[in-house]
Protein backbone atom coordinates (compact mmCIF):
# COMPACT_ATOMS: atom_id res chain seq x y z
CA UNK A 1 0.00 0.00 0.00
CA UNK A 2 1.36 3.40 -0.92
CA UNK A 3 2.02 5.74 1.93
CA UNK A 4 -0.20 8.42 0.41
CA UNK A 5 -3.40 6.43 0.70
CA UNK A 6 -3.24 6.45 4.48
CA UNK A 7 -3.65 10.22 4.59
CA UNK A 8 -7.04 11.72 5.19
CA UNK A 9 -8.46 13.02 1.95
CA UNK A 10 -9.99 16.46 2.51
CA UNK A 11 -13.04 15.76 0.37
CA UNK A 12 -14.08 12.83 2.54
CA UNK A 13 -13.69 14.81 5.78
CA UNK A 14 -15.75 17.71 4.46
CA UNK A 15 -18.75 15.60 3.56
CA UNK A 16 -21.48 16.28 6.12
CA UNK A 17 -23.06 12.86 5.76
CA UNK A 18 -19.90 11.24 7.09
CA UNK A 19 -19.71 13.42 10.17
CA UNK A 20 -20.58 11.22 13.10
CA UNK A 21 -20.66 12.22 16.73
CA UNK A 22 -20.21 9.90 19.64
CA UNK A 23 -21.81 10.19 23.07
CA UNK A 24 -19.42 9.37 25.85
CA UNK A 25 -20.58 8.79 29.39
CA UNK A 26 -17.93 9.91 31.87
CA UNK A 27 -18.57 8.88 35.44
CA UNK A 28 -20.23 8.65 37.92
CA UNK A 29 -17.39 6.32 38.85
CA UNK A 30 -14.41 7.85 37.12
CA UNK A 31 -11.15 8.74 38.87
CA UNK A 32 -10.84 12.19 37.33
CA UNK A 33 -14.33 13.32 38.34
CA UNK A 34 -13.21 13.37 41.99
CA UNK A 35 -16.32 11.81 43.34
CA UNK A 36 -19.63 10.82 41.84
CA UNK A 37 -20.10 13.32 39.04
CA UNK A 38 -21.49 12.15 35.74
CA UNK A 39 -20.74 14.10 32.58
CA UNK A 40 -22.33 13.22 29.26
CA UNK A 41 -20.06 14.32 26.44
CA UNK A 42 -20.96 14.60 22.76
CA UNK A 43 -17.74 14.08 20.84
CA UNK A 44 -16.68 14.78 17.31
CA UNK A 45 -13.43 12.86 17.26
CA UNK A 46 -11.40 14.36 20.08
CA UNK A 47 -13.44 17.57 20.29
CA UNK A 48 -16.22 17.99 22.85
CA UNK A 49 -19.30 19.46 21.17
CA UNK A 50 -21.55 19.44 24.21
CA UNK A 51 -21.12 18.59 27.86
CA UNK A 52 -23.97 18.01 30.30
CA UNK A 53 -23.28 17.56 34.01
CA UNK A 54 -25.49 15.19 35.96
CA UNK A 55 -25.27 15.74 39.69
CA UNK A 56 -27.18 14.50 42.70
CA UNK A 57 -25.59 11.09 43.25
CA UNK A 58 -24.35 12.20 46.67
CA UNK A 59 -27.54 14.01 47.69
CA UNK A 60 -28.22 13.03 51.29
CA UNK A 61 -30.84 15.61 52.21
CA UNK A 62 -28.69 17.41 54.75
CA UNK A 63 -30.86 20.54 54.56
CA UNK A 64 -33.92 18.49 55.46
CA UNK A 65 -32.08 16.72 58.27
CA UNK A 66 -31.09 20.10 59.74
CA UNK A 67 -34.77 20.85 60.35
CA UNK A 68 -35.08 17.85 62.68
CA UNK A 69 -31.99 18.58 64.82
CA UNK A 70 -31.45 21.13 67.54
CA UNK A 71 -29.30 24.14 66.65
CA UNK A 72 -26.12 22.65 68.06
CA UNK A 73 -26.74 19.21 66.57
CA UNK A 74 -26.57 20.70 63.07
CA UNK A 75 -22.82 21.36 63.39
CA UNK A 76 -21.79 17.71 62.79
CA UNK A 77 -24.04 17.67 59.71
CA UNK A 78 -22.24 20.68 58.26
CA UNK A 79 -18.99 18.69 58.49
CA UNK A 80 -20.37 16.29 55.92
CA UNK A 81 -21.17 18.97 53.35
CA UNK A 82 -17.66 19.80 52.22
CA UNK A 83 -15.69 17.02 53.84
CA UNK A 84 -12.34 18.46 52.76
CA UNK A 85 -12.83 21.81 54.49
CA UNK A 86 -15.31 20.98 57.19
CA UNK A 87 -14.17 23.77 59.52
CA UNK A 88 -15.21 26.43 57.00
CA UNK A 89 -18.68 24.86 56.97
CA UNK A 90 -18.82 24.79 60.78
CA UNK A 91 -17.74 28.40 60.83
CA UNK A 92 -20.29 29.68 58.30
CA UNK A 93 -23.13 27.95 60.12
CA UNK A 94 -21.99 29.16 63.55
CA UNK A 95 -21.60 32.73 62.28
CA UNK A 96 -25.15 32.72 60.93
CA UNK A 97 -26.64 31.40 64.17
CA UNK A 98 -24.46 33.72 66.25
CA UNK A 99 -25.79 36.66 64.26
CA UNK A 100 -29.33 35.60 65.12
CA UNK A 101 -28.36 35.21 68.77
CA UNK A 102 -26.23 38.41 68.73
CA UNK A 103 -23.44 36.55 70.52
CA UNK A 104 -20.04 38.06 71.23
CA UNK A 105 -17.20 35.61 70.56
CA UNK A 106 -14.09 35.91 72.75
CA UNK A 107 -10.78 36.62 70.95
CA UNK A 108 -9.16 33.29 71.80
CA UNK A 109 -12.04 31.41 70.18
CA UNK A 110 -11.77 33.61 67.10
CA UNK A 111 -8.03 32.99 66.81
CA UNK A 112 -8.49 29.24 67.26
CA UNK A 113 -11.18 29.30 64.59
CA UNK A 114 -9.01 31.27 62.18
CA UNK A 115 -5.93 29.13 62.74
CA UNK A 116 -7.68 25.81 62.26
CA UNK A 117 -9.76 27.05 59.33
CA UNK A 118 -6.60 28.17 57.58
CA UNK A 119 -4.90 24.85 58.31
CA UNK A 120 -7.87 23.01 56.87
CA UNK A 121 -7.74 25.32 53.84
CA UNK A 122 -4.13 24.23 53.35
CA UNK A 123 -5.19 20.59 53.69
CA UNK A 124 -8.01 21.10 51.19
CA UNK A 125 -5.71 22.81 48.67
CA UNK A 126 -3.21 19.98 49.11
CA UNK A 127 -5.84 17.40 48.20
CA UNK A 128 -6.68 19.47 45.13
CA UNK A 129 -3.03 19.87 44.15
CA UNK A 130 -2.23 16.19 44.60
CA UNK A 131 -5.23 14.87 42.70
CA UNK A 132 -5.07 17.54 40.00
CA UNK A 133 -1.42 16.74 39.31
CA UNK A 134 -2.21 13.03 39.41
CA UNK A 135 -4.91 13.51 36.75
CA UNK A 136 -2.44 15.23 34.47
CA UNK A 137 0.18 12.56 35.09
CA UNK A 138 2.50 13.90 37.79
CA UNK A 139 2.22 10.92 40.11
CA UNK A 140 4.68 11.83 42.85
CA UNK A 141 2.93 15.12 43.74
CA UNK A 142 0.07 13.13 45.19
CA UNK A 143 2.28 11.45 47.77
CA UNK A 144 4.07 14.64 48.80
CA UNK A 145 0.81 16.55 49.18
CA UNK A 146 -0.81 13.80 51.22
CA UNK A 147 2.26 13.62 53.45
CA UNK A 148 1.77 17.25 54.48
CA UNK A 149 -1.99 16.84 54.68
CA UNK A 150 -1.42 13.99 57.13
CA UNK A 151 0.42 16.40 59.45
CA UNK A 152 -2.57 18.76 59.39
CA UNK A 153 -5.02 15.94 60.04
CA UNK A 154 -2.93 14.97 63.06
CA UNK A 155 -3.13 18.56 64.32
CA UNK A 156 -6.92 18.53 63.86
CA UNK A 157 -7.07 15.21 65.70
CA UNK A 158 -5.03 16.69 68.52
CA UNK A 159 -7.48 19.60 68.87
CA UNK A 160 -10.78 17.82 68.37
CA UNK A 161 -10.23 14.08 68.60
CA UNK A 162 -11.18 13.56 64.95
CA UNK A 163 -9.14 13.72 61.77
CA UNK A 164 -11.74 14.81 59.23
CA UNK A 165 -15.20 15.23 60.75
CA UNK A 166 -13.93 17.44 63.54
CA UNK A 167 -17.15 19.25 64.60
CA UNK A 168 -14.77 21.40 66.57
CA UNK A 169 -16.77 24.61 66.48
CA UNK A 170 -19.63 25.36 68.82
CA UNK A 171 -22.24 28.05 68.55
CA UNK A 172 -20.52 30.64 70.74
CA UNK A 173 -16.93 29.41 70.53
CA UNK A 174 -15.04 26.17 70.11
CA UNK A 175 -15.63 22.79 71.73
CA UNK A 176 -12.40 22.47 73.69
CA UNK A 177 -9.47 24.64 74.60
CA UNK A 178 -6.21 24.02 72.74
CA UNK A 179 -4.56 20.83 74.04
CA UNK A 180 -1.29 20.75 75.95
CA UNK A 181 1.77 21.10 73.72
CA UNK A 182 -0.17 22.35 70.68
CA UNK A 183 2.18 25.30 70.03
CA UNK A 184 5.08 22.93 69.44
CA UNK A 185 3.21 20.70 67.00
CA UNK A 186 1.63 23.53 65.01
CA UNK A 187 4.89 25.50 65.09
CA UNK A 188 6.86 22.55 63.76
CA UNK A 189 4.47 22.09 60.86
CA UNK A 190 4.39 25.81 60.03
CA UNK A 191 8.19 26.11 60.11
CA UNK A 192 8.57 23.25 57.64
CA UNK A 193 5.71 24.06 55.31
CA UNK A 194 7.16 26.98 53.23
CA UNK A 195 10.01 24.77 52.02
CA UNK A 196 7.44 22.13 51.04
CA UNK A 197 5.56 24.69 48.90
CA UNK A 198 8.88 25.55 47.23
CA UNK A 199 9.32 21.87 46.51
CA UNK A 200 5.89 21.61 44.86
CA UNK A 201 6.72 24.61 42.74
CA UNK A 202 10.09 23.10 41.77
CA UNK A 203 8.26 20.02 40.60
CA UNK A 204 5.48 21.73 38.67
CA UNK A 205 5.74 25.46 37.93
CA UNK A 206 8.64 25.29 35.49
CA UNK A 207 7.89 21.75 34.34
CA UNK A 208 7.40 21.89 30.54
CA UNK A 209 4.86 19.05 30.50
CA UNK A 210 2.84 20.75 33.25
CA UNK A 211 2.85 24.14 31.52
CA UNK A 212 1.89 22.67 28.13
CA UNK A 213 -0.98 20.76 29.69
CA UNK A 214 -2.29 23.73 31.70
CA UNK A 215 -1.51 27.04 29.97
CA UNK A 216 -4.37 28.36 27.85
CA UNK A 217 -6.61 25.46 28.85
CA UNK A 218 -10.06 25.96 30.37
CA UNK A 219 -10.25 29.68 29.69
CA UNK A 220 -13.31 31.61 30.83
CA UNK A 221 -13.71 35.39 30.75
CA UNK A 222 -14.30 37.33 33.96
CA UNK A 223 -17.72 38.51 32.74
CA UNK A 224 -18.81 34.93 32.15
CA UNK A 225 -17.53 33.80 35.53
CA UNK A 226 -19.44 36.61 37.29
CA UNK A 227 -22.56 35.85 35.29
CA UNK A 228 -22.42 32.19 36.25
CA UNK A 229 -21.91 33.02 39.94
CA UNK A 230 -18.42 31.55 40.18
CA UNK A 231 -16.40 32.46 43.28
CA UNK A 232 -13.13 31.68 44.97
CA UNK A 233 -9.74 31.00 43.38
CA UNK A 234 -11.32 30.61 39.94
CA UNK A 235 -12.55 34.19 39.83
CA UNK A 236 -9.32 35.50 41.36
CA UNK A 237 -7.41 33.74 38.58
CA UNK A 238 -9.49 35.83 36.17
CA UNK A 239 -8.33 39.08 37.77
CA UNK A 240 -11.00 39.97 40.32
CA UNK A 241 -9.38 40.90 43.62
CA UNK A 242 -12.22 39.81 45.85
CA UNK A 243 -11.89 37.71 48.95
CA UNK A 244 -14.57 37.62 51.64
CA UNK A 245 -11.90 37.41 54.34
CA UNK A 246 -10.64 40.81 53.16
CA UNK A 247 -13.82 42.55 51.98
CA UNK A 248 -16.33 41.39 54.57
CA UNK A 249 -14.06 40.31 57.43
CA UNK A 250 -15.53 37.83 59.87
CA UNK A 251 -14.12 36.09 62.93
CA UNK A 252 -11.41 38.74 63.33
CA UNK A 253 -9.78 38.38 59.90
CA UNK A 254 -9.31 42.16 59.80
CA UNK A 255 -6.57 41.75 62.42
CA UNK A 256 -4.47 39.54 60.14
CA UNK A 257 -2.05 40.70 57.50
CA UNK A 258 -2.29 38.80 54.22
CA UNK A 259 -2.51 39.37 50.49
CA UNK A 260 -5.19 38.33 48.01
CA UNK A 261 -3.36 36.72 45.09
CA UNK A 262 -4.76 37.29 41.61
CA UNK A 263 -3.83 36.40 38.03
CA UNK A 264 -5.43 37.56 34.83
CA UNK A 265 -4.98 34.63 32.42
CA UNK A 266 -8.01 32.71 33.79
CA UNK A 267 -6.69 29.35 32.60
CA UNK A 268 -5.77 26.17 34.46
CA UNK A 269 -2.23 27.39 35.07
CA UNK A 270 -3.42 30.71 36.53
CA UNK A 271 -5.75 28.86 38.91
CA UNK A 272 -2.84 26.67 39.93
CA UNK A 273 -0.70 29.75 40.63
CA UNK A 274 -3.46 31.43 42.65
CA UNK A 275 -3.96 28.35 44.82
CA UNK A 276 -0.22 27.89 45.38
CA UNK A 277 -0.01 31.52 46.48
CA UNK A 278 -3.03 30.97 48.73
CA UNK A 279 -1.12 28.16 50.42
CA UNK A 280 1.56 30.69 51.31
CA UNK A 281 -0.99 33.26 52.50
CA UNK A 282 -2.84 30.69 54.62
CA UNK A 283 0.47 29.72 56.14
CA UNK A 284 1.07 33.41 56.92
CA UNK A 285 -2.32 33.76 58.62
CA UNK A 286 -1.92 30.56 60.62
CA UNK A 287 1.55 31.71 61.76
CA UNK A 288 0.12 35.04 62.95
CA UNK A 289 -2.65 33.23 64.80
CA UNK A 290 -0.11 30.92 66.43
CA UNK A 291 2.15 33.80 67.52
CA UNK A 292 -0.64 36.09 68.66
CA UNK A 293 -2.96 33.57 70.31
CA UNK A 294 -4.61 35.56 73.12
CA UNK A 295 -5.30 34.01 76.51
CA UNK A 296 -8.77 33.90 77.97
CA UNK A 297 -11.98 31.96 77.57
CA UNK A 298 -12.57 29.88 74.46
CA UNK A 299 -16.35 30.13 74.68
CA UNK A 300 -18.73 33.03 74.95
CA UNK A 301 -20.29 33.88 78.28
CA UNK A 302 -23.71 32.45 77.50
CA UNK A 303 -24.71 29.83 80.09
CA UNK A 304 -28.02 29.07 78.37
CA UNK A 305 -26.33 28.23 75.07
CA UNK A 306 -23.02 26.59 75.91
CA UNK A 307 -22.63 23.63 78.24
CA UNK A 308 -21.19 24.53 81.66
CA UNK A 309 -17.85 23.25 82.86
CA UNK A 310 -18.04 19.74 84.28
CA UNK A 311 -16.90 20.87 87.71
CA UNK A 312 -19.50 23.66 87.90
CA UNK A 313 -22.22 21.34 86.69
CA UNK A 314 -21.57 19.05 89.64
CA UNK A 315 -21.41 21.77 92.28
CA UNK A 316 -23.73 24.60 91.21
CA UNK A 317 -27.47 24.25 90.84
CA UNK A 318 -27.87 26.91 88.10
CA UNK A 319 -25.19 25.22 86.02
CA UNK A 320 -26.94 21.87 86.47
CA UNK A 321 -30.27 23.34 85.35
CA UNK A 322 -28.67 24.94 82.28
CA UNK A 323 -26.91 21.69 81.44
CA UNK A 324 -30.16 19.75 81.75
CA UNK A 325 -32.08 22.22 79.57
CA UNK A 326 -29.41 22.32 76.86
CA UNK A 327 -29.04 18.55 76.71
CA UNK A 328 -32.74 17.70 76.78
CA UNK A 329 -34.24 20.37 74.53
CA UNK A 330 -31.43 22.59 73.27
CA UNK A 331 -31.66 26.37 73.25
CA UNK A 332 -34.07 28.57 71.37
CA UNK A 333 -32.93 31.15 68.86
CA UNK A 334 -34.86 34.42 68.32
CA UNK A 335 -37.04 34.38 65.22
CA UNK A 336 -35.48 35.88 62.14
CA UNK A 337 -33.21 35.11 59.26
CA UNK A 338 -29.49 35.52 58.68
CA UNK A 339 -27.06 34.88 55.85
CA UNK A 340 -23.42 34.47 56.83
CA UNK A 341 -20.74 33.69 54.30
CA UNK A 342 -17.10 32.75 54.59
CA UNK A 343 -14.30 32.34 52.08
CA UNK A 344 -14.07 28.56 51.86
CA UNK A 345 -11.24 26.97 49.84
CA UNK A 346 -13.60 26.71 46.87
CA UNK A 347 -15.25 30.12 47.10
CA UNK A 348 -18.18 31.77 48.81
CA UNK A 349 -19.79 29.43 51.29
CA UNK A 350 -22.96 30.94 52.68
CA UNK A 351 -25.44 29.64 55.22
CA UNK A 352 -28.92 31.10 55.12
CA UNK A 353 -30.59 30.24 58.40
CA UNK A 354 -34.23 30.89 59.26
CA UNK A 355 -35.47 30.60 62.83
CA UNK A 356 -39.05 30.56 64.03
CA UNK A 357 -38.00 31.05 67.64
CA UNK A 358 -37.88 27.37 68.60
CA UNK A 359 -35.01 25.06 69.49
CA UNK A 360 -34.67 23.73 65.94
CA UNK A 361 -33.82 25.56 62.70
CA UNK A 362 -36.83 26.25 60.52
CA UNK A 363 -34.73 26.21 57.36
CA UNK A 364 -31.04 25.97 56.61
CA UNK A 365 -29.88 26.64 53.07
CA UNK A 366 -26.28 26.06 52.14
CA UNK A 367 -24.96 28.19 49.32
CA UNK A 368 -22.09 25.89 48.53
CA UNK A 369 -19.30 27.06 46.22
CA UNK A 370 -18.97 23.77 44.33
CA UNK A 371 -22.63 23.85 43.29
CA UNK A 372 -22.37 27.28 41.72
CA UNK A 373 -18.90 26.70 40.28
CA UNK A 374 -19.80 23.41 38.65
CA UNK A 375 -22.38 25.16 36.46
CA UNK A 376 -19.64 26.45 34.20
CA UNK A 377 -18.58 22.91 33.33
CA UNK A 378 -20.68 22.94 30.15
CA UNK A 379 -19.51 26.28 28.68
CA UNK A 380 -15.93 25.62 29.74
CA UNK A 381 -15.64 22.21 28.11
CA UNK A 382 -17.43 22.96 24.86
CA UNK A 383 -15.16 23.01 21.79
CA UNK A 384 -12.13 21.80 23.71
CA UNK A 385 -10.23 18.55 23.45
CA UNK A 386 -11.31 15.67 25.62
CA UNK A 387 -7.78 15.33 27.04
CA UNK A 388 -7.97 18.97 28.20
CA UNK A 389 -11.28 18.34 29.93
CA UNK A 390 -9.42 16.40 32.63
CA UNK A 391 -7.18 19.38 33.34
CA UNK A 392 -10.13 21.81 33.22
CA UNK A 393 -12.24 19.67 35.56
CA UNK A 394 -9.36 19.38 38.02
CA UNK A 395 -8.80 23.14 38.03
CA UNK A 396 -12.39 23.72 39.20
CA UNK A 397 -11.64 21.93 42.47
CA UNK A 398 -15.15 20.79 43.29
CA UNK A 399 -16.23 18.42 46.02
CA UNK A 400 -19.33 16.42 45.22
CA UNK A 401 -20.49 16.36 48.83
CA UNK A 402 -20.44 20.14 48.64
CA UNK A 403 -22.36 20.10 45.36
CA UNK A 404 -25.10 17.64 46.24
CA UNK A 405 -25.48 18.10 50.02
Amino acid at each position, binding site marked *: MAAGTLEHTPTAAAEPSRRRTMTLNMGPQHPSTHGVLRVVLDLDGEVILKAVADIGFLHTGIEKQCETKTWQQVVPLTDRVDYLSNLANNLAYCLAVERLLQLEIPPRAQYLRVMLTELSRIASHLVWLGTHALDIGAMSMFMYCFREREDILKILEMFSGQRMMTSYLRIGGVALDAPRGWEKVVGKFLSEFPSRIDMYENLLTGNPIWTIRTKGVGYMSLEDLLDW*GVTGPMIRAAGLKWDIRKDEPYSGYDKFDFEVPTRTESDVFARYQVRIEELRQSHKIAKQALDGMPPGPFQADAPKILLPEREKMKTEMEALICHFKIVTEGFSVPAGEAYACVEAPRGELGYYVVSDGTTKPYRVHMRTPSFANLQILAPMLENTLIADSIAALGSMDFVLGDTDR
Partner: protein
Amino acid sequence: MRVTQALEGNLPGAAVGGKLDRGELTIDIDPARIVEVCRALKADGYLRLAAVTCVDQYPMEPRFEVIYHLHSISRNERLRLKCRVSGTQPEIDSVIGVWRGADWFEREVFDLFGVHFRNHGNMTRILMPEDWEGHPLRKDFPVHGYKYSYPQE
Protein backbone atom coordinates in the same frame (compact mmCIF):
# COMPACT_ATOMS: atom_id res chain seq x y z
CA MET B 1 -31.51 53.13 52.40
CA ARG B 2 -30.16 54.17 49.05
CA VAL B 3 -31.15 51.02 47.21
CA THR B 4 -34.77 51.05 48.38
CA GLN B 5 -35.14 54.68 47.29
CA ALA B 6 -33.62 53.93 43.90
CA LEU B 7 -35.95 50.95 43.51
CA GLU B 8 -39.01 52.97 44.47
CA GLY B 9 -37.98 55.76 42.08
CA ASN B 10 -37.35 53.49 39.10
CA LEU B 11 -40.01 50.86 39.60
CA PRO B 12 -42.77 52.24 41.82
CA GLY B 13 -44.89 49.58 43.46
CA ALA B 14 -42.47 46.71 42.85
CA ALA B 15 -41.30 46.67 46.45
CA VAL B 16 -44.17 45.71 48.73
CA GLY B 17 -42.31 45.69 52.01
CA GLY B 18 -39.00 45.10 53.65
CA LYS B 19 -36.94 45.19 56.79
CA LEU B 20 -33.45 45.87 58.07
CA ASP B 21 -32.76 43.19 60.64
CA ARG B 22 -29.38 42.51 62.30
CA GLY B 23 -27.61 44.46 59.58
CA GLU B 24 -29.23 42.56 56.71
CA LEU B 25 -31.55 44.27 54.28
CA THR B 26 -34.53 42.32 52.98
CA ILE B 27 -36.92 43.72 50.38
CA ASP B 28 -40.23 42.04 49.59
CA ILE B 29 -40.89 42.11 45.87
CA ASP B 30 -44.10 41.60 43.95
CA PRO B 31 -43.47 38.19 42.31
CA ALA B 32 -44.91 39.35 39.00
CA ARG B 33 -42.15 41.96 38.68
CA ILE B 34 -39.12 40.01 39.87
CA VAL B 35 -37.36 39.99 36.49
CA GLU B 36 -37.51 43.75 35.94
CA VAL B 37 -36.45 44.37 39.54
CA CYS B 38 -33.45 42.06 39.14
CA ARG B 39 -32.52 43.69 35.85
CA ALA B 40 -32.68 47.16 37.45
CA LEU B 41 -30.62 46.02 40.44
CA LYS B 42 -28.01 44.41 38.21
CA ALA B 43 -27.70 47.70 36.32
CA ASP B 44 -27.40 49.39 39.71
CA GLY B 45 -24.29 47.35 40.59
CA TYR B 46 -25.56 44.09 42.01
CA LEU B 47 -23.53 42.08 39.50
CA ARG B 48 -23.60 38.84 41.45
CA LEU B 49 -26.47 36.56 42.24
CA ALA B 50 -25.12 34.60 45.21
CA ALA B 51 -28.00 32.17 45.59
CA VAL B 52 -31.67 31.46 44.97
CA THR B 53 -33.50 29.44 47.56
CA CYS B 54 -36.92 28.97 49.08
CA VAL B 55 -38.62 28.73 52.45
CA ASP B 56 -41.86 26.82 52.91
CA GLN B 57 -44.18 28.63 55.34
CA TYR B 58 -46.77 25.85 55.36
CA PRO B 59 -49.65 26.16 56.25
CA MET B 60 -49.49 29.92 55.75
CA GLU B 61 -50.70 31.38 52.46
CA PRO B 62 -48.96 32.55 50.28
CA ARG B 63 -46.95 29.52 51.15
CA PHE B 64 -43.54 29.80 49.51
CA GLU B 65 -40.94 32.51 49.95
CA VAL B 66 -38.50 32.51 47.05
CA ILE B 67 -35.31 34.16 48.26
CA TYR B 68 -32.65 35.83 46.11
CA HIS B 69 -29.30 36.76 47.63
CA LEU B 70 -27.68 39.57 45.67
CA HIS B 71 -24.20 40.94 46.12
CA SER B 72 -22.51 44.08 44.87
CA ILE B 73 -18.75 43.67 44.89
CA SER B 74 -17.99 47.32 44.09
CA ARG B 75 -20.09 48.68 46.96
CA ASN B 76 -19.56 45.66 49.21
CA GLU B 77 -23.27 45.33 49.89
CA ARG B 78 -25.57 42.39 50.16
CA LEU B 79 -29.29 42.40 49.58
CA ARG B 80 -32.01 39.83 49.98
CA LEU B 81 -35.11 39.82 47.80
CA LYS B 82 -38.14 37.91 48.90
CA CYS B 83 -41.12 36.92 46.73
CA ARG B 84 -44.17 35.30 48.25
CA VAL B 85 -45.65 32.68 45.96
CA SER B 86 -48.98 30.93 46.36
CA GLY B 87 -49.05 27.29 47.39
CA THR B 88 -51.88 26.22 45.07
CA GLN B 89 -49.97 26.93 41.87
CA PRO B 90 -46.42 27.92 42.82
CA GLU B 91 -44.98 29.76 39.82
CA ILE B 92 -42.60 32.64 39.31
CA ASP B 93 -40.61 34.02 36.37
CA SER B 94 -37.06 32.78 35.99
CA VAL B 95 -34.22 35.28 36.34
CA ILE B 96 -31.98 33.18 34.11
CA GLY B 97 -32.08 36.00 31.54
CA VAL B 98 -30.47 38.34 34.06
CA TRP B 99 -27.91 35.97 35.57
CA ARG B 100 -27.17 32.67 33.84
CA GLY B 101 -25.93 31.39 37.18
CA ALA B 102 -29.55 31.19 38.37
CA ASP B 103 -29.92 28.01 36.28
CA TRP B 104 -29.06 25.30 38.80
CA PHE B 105 -30.34 27.23 41.82
CA GLU B 106 -33.80 27.51 40.26
CA ARG B 107 -33.75 23.87 39.25
CA GLU B 108 -32.87 22.98 42.83
CA VAL B 109 -35.80 25.01 44.18
CA PHE B 110 -38.08 23.30 41.67
CA ASP B 111 -36.72 19.89 42.64
CA LEU B 112 -36.94 20.30 46.40
CA PHE B 113 -39.93 22.67 46.75
CA GLY B 114 -41.92 22.28 43.55
CA VAL B 115 -41.90 25.98 42.68
CA HIS B 116 -42.04 26.25 38.90
CA PHE B 117 -39.86 28.88 37.22
CA ARG B 118 -41.40 30.14 33.98
CA ASN B 119 -39.16 30.61 30.91
CA HIS B 120 -36.33 28.65 32.46
CA GLY B 121 -35.95 26.28 29.52
CA ASN B 122 -34.84 23.21 31.43
CA MET B 123 -37.08 22.88 34.48
CA THR B 124 -36.07 19.34 35.45
CA ARG B 125 -35.01 17.68 38.67
CA ILE B 126 -31.38 18.19 39.56
CA LEU B 127 -30.63 16.46 42.87
CA MET B 128 -33.40 13.89 43.30
CA PRO B 129 -33.92 10.94 40.91
CA GLU B 130 -35.97 11.82 37.84
CA ASP B 131 -38.87 9.55 38.84
CA TRP B 132 -39.08 10.83 42.41
CA GLU B 133 -42.55 11.75 43.63
CA GLY B 134 -43.05 14.89 45.67
CA HIS B 135 -40.72 17.65 46.76
CA PRO B 136 -38.76 16.69 49.87
CA LEU B 137 -38.05 20.09 51.42
CA ARG B 138 -41.75 20.92 51.67
CA LYS B 139 -42.86 20.92 55.28
CA ASP B 140 -45.70 18.47 54.55
CA PHE B 141 -43.39 15.89 52.92
CA PRO B 142 -43.50 12.77 55.10
CA VAL B 143 -40.27 12.08 56.99
CA HIS B 144 -41.41 8.78 58.47
CA GLY B 145 -42.59 5.54 56.89
CA TYR B 146 -41.43 3.32 54.07
CA LYS B 147 -41.14 4.19 50.44
CA TYR B 148 -39.63 2.20 47.63
CA SER B 149 -37.86 4.64 45.41
CA TYR B 150 -37.22 1.98 42.77
CA PRO B 151 -39.87 -0.25 41.18
CA GLN B 152 -40.09 -3.74 42.65
CA GLU B 153 -38.96 -6.63 40.48
